[in-house]
């Protein structure tokens, strides 16, 4: 693999359960985070439901993997972009999302927010700035 650091964006568009896409994306992110690339995640369309807080999956017989998003900070993945319009279209606000943070080792483990709500236009701009985009 080349030494050059690239910008990777994982674009999440689908609801967390019902298909395997959301969990697969999260696993690939965690595995890929070992490779010293600059990794960010984007949540658009039904993908915003992946990071909604208070998920309960007992009734559908699937593992609730939402706690794993809180581990992203440990993996140095701390740029999570959420599209404002996608939230609004689903009657959600940032307060409905999990409080995902990372700790800055260089500032005595100061806790910082990972989630950034951006407009559709800003999201388009973020996507164009990437070297690699994985769409799930």
């Amino acid at each position: 693999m080349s030494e050059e650091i690239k910008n990777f964006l994982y674009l999440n568009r689908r609801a967390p359960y019902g298909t395997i896409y959301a969990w697969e994306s999260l696993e690939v992110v965690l595995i890929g985070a070992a490779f010293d690339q600059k990794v960010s995640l984007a949540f658009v369309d039904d993908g915003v439901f992946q990071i909604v807080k208070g998920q309960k999956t007992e009734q559908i017989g699937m593992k609730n993997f939402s706690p794993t998003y809180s581990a992203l900070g440990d993996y140095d993945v701390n740029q999570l972009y959420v599209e404002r319009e996608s939230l609004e279209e689903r009657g959600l606000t940032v307060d409905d999302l999990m409080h995902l943070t990372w700790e800055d080792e260089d500032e005595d483990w100061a806790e910082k927010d990972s989630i950034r709500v951006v407009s559709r236009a800003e999201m388009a701009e973020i996507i164009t700035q990437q070297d690699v985009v994985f769409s799930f």
Partner: protein
Amino acid sequence: MAIEVDGKVLETDEEGYLVNLKDWVPAVADEMAKEDDLVLTEEHWEIINFLREYYDEYQIAPAVRVLTKAVGKRMGKEKGNSKYLYSLFPYGPGKQACRFAGLPKPTGCI
């Protein structure tokens, strides 16, 4: 594959990890350690218990890099380094310690 602990036969996968996480009891770690020619000390248990807490909270076994950083934060720099962790778990603090802890193979270990 399987491992016998306290007279019970527990199913393991081809790499020796427990198939059913709920099968785990502390004696599983002791038995697996014995097979690897290790005797578990308080220092080993500190890491094994930490891994189990991490899994409880995040539903994944941390990659070794993440484990090292987290141990450093929790227990100090003299323990949060790979030399110390490899001295406890010579087959790799991620893989071996997670196996002893009854967890799946770490996510992000290649």
